[in-house]
């Protein structure tokens, strides 16, 4: 997590040299820097900062892509807040995040603990967990479209066989978002597993051995040694996975195409529908901005709270 932004003091000045020589060298350096930076700098301006400013402009305009845009004030935003479908999408998005993020993190953490003890076989077991990570979300969703179809799903057959109710996953309104979360957990598990295992790897055996000598139980070791030492990894994963799950889109689009019921819609789905089907660029940009602000806020809160629980080694 430590981002090294310090400029090395020794590189900055060379006081013993004549002024002119330093300045000439500095100019040469600046020219070199500009050349090295130019492709990414061009990209930053044309494909990031420009569009960002443009999006801000659109959020306060009425425009359908043709003719001239007119100033809309805050009307795009008020329109969003008054729209019950958007409110429902926001709730759906949060519900998905609440199910998926802890679901992935807890299972990935537990499996990492177990895998760590599996010795040489780890790389074999890992194949099963990481395979969904490298697979396209469209392929993943298509497979689950099959597994969620109550008429042919082996999952439902298995559930019925052990006497559990077999839901109609993608039709029953109360099961739609949990279904998305199941797919999200299945696909996201391997990534976090690898991260947690790398984190566990970096915990020195000496800490755990010291705790053992002090007579700590397995639970105490986990609670007071492993978890605190893994806290930077936990923070990183919780930030990135919350950001990711707030942007869930692919699964829904593959499952439902353009006619998802209100119970299935998420914020990004709404943004895409508004922008590219209704060509309401203003309201779509306004909603995307709200999403950005929420993500900034949530990440900011996590960064502010980290002092209370994140421990950095050294």
């Amino acid at each position, binding site marked *: 997590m430590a*981002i*090294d*932004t310090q*400029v090395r003091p020794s590189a900055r000045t060379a006081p013993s040299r004549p002024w002119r020589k330093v300045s000439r060298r500095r100019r040469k350096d600046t020219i*070199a820097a500009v050349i*090295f*930076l130019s492709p*990414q700098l*061009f*990209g*930053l301006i044309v*494909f*990031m900062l420009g*569009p*960002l400013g443009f*999006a801000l402009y*659109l959020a306060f305009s009425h425009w359908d892509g043709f003719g001239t845009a007119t100033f809309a004030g805050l009307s795009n935003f008020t329109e969003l807040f008054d729209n019950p479908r958007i409110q429902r999408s926001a709730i759906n998005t949060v519900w998905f995040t609440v199910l998926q993020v802890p679901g992935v993190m807890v299972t990935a953490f537990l*499996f990492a603990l177990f895998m760590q003890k599996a*010795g*040489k076989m*780890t*790389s*074999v*077991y*890992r*194949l*099963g*967990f990481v*395979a*969904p*990570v490298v697979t*396209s*979300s*469209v*392929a993943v969703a*298509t*497979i689950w479209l*099959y597994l969620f179809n109550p008429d*042919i799903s*082996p999952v439902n057959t298995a559930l019925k066989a052990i006497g559990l109710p077999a839901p109609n996953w993608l039709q029953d309104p109360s099961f739609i978002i949990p279904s998305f979360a199941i797919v999200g957990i299945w696909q996201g598990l391997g990534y976090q597993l*690898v*991260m947690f295992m*790398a984190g566990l*790897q970096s915990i020195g055996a000496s800490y755990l*051995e010291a705790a053992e000598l002090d007579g700590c139980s397995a639970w105490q070791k986990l609670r007071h040694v492993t978890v605190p030492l893994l806290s930077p990894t936990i923070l*990183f994963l919780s930030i990135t996975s919350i*950001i990711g799950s707030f*942007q869930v*889109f*692919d699964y829904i*689009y*593959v499952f439902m*195409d353009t006619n998802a019921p209100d119970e299935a819609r998420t914020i990004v789905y709404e*943004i*895409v529908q508004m*922008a*590219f089907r209704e060509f309401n660029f203003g309201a779509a*940009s306004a909603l*995307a901005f709200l*999403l950005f602000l929420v993500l900034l806020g949530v990440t900011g809160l996590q960064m502010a709270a980290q002092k209370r629980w994140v421990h950095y080694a050294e």
Partner: protein
Amino acid sequence: MSAFTDTATRSPETQLRRRPVRPAKLALHFALVVCAVLMALPFLWMMFSSFKPLDEIFRQPPALLPENWTTEGYQKAFEGADFVRGFWNSTYIAVTVTALSLLTSAMAAYAFARIDFRGSRTLFMVFLATMMVPGQLTIIPLYIIMGWLGWIDTPLSLIIPSSLFSAFGVFLMRQYIKGIPRELEEAAELDGASKFRIFTTMILPLLRTPLTALGIFTFLGQWNNFFGPLIFLNSDANFTLPLLVNQFKGQYGADWTALMSATTLVAAPLLIIFAVAQRQIVDGIALSGSKS
């Protein structure tokens, strides 16, 4: 990043204390085997279903293995959509973006890590800050810009932005270059070597590991990308594999053997790459987090 394969190094005492096979260990391995197979089961289901005749899909209770193996599904898949073309489109975009973005990211990272110029820190902070911007916010203006450029429905709309801007790539490479000892470069500079010479002959070769990791990530991201192509591409001939499968699903929705064949066609290349290069991919994932 040496290994996940061996557990943390044991002190000699604990090694002596270790008994050959304990029932707890056996139970652990059994549980992990079951879970790993469960995780892989959806893929196995997809693959075996693609070789079933359609009536076996609807048979109750469903069986994993086909009774009568058939390639009917694949024939229908190739008739229904041009997957060869899609494969080419996906590969062309993913390979071009990966090559260009590795180069531009490493170049910018070198400037940030090694050249002292005014505004370096601020500019780097701007790069970092853009990582927070969700893609959905910029895609609407980008769509309009692509329209002005006449790039809608061309691979350029996907290749150029990703090749010329990657905040994550610049960040990752900069962290790496910062970690390389500076002495050699300083010596070369005193000998009159230019920054370009130092970059190409000294820095780039040392970046092999992180560039491989970033390359794998970039390739995976591009190959699997659905959102960008969905917005920018609209004619079948330009479709990438994920778009083709999604479209195929709309047409052959109830024909599960054909649909599972199409899905297998999309998933298989990456699953094969993954099986071959598991080590590099896993190390790459771990590395992407450790430098952040």
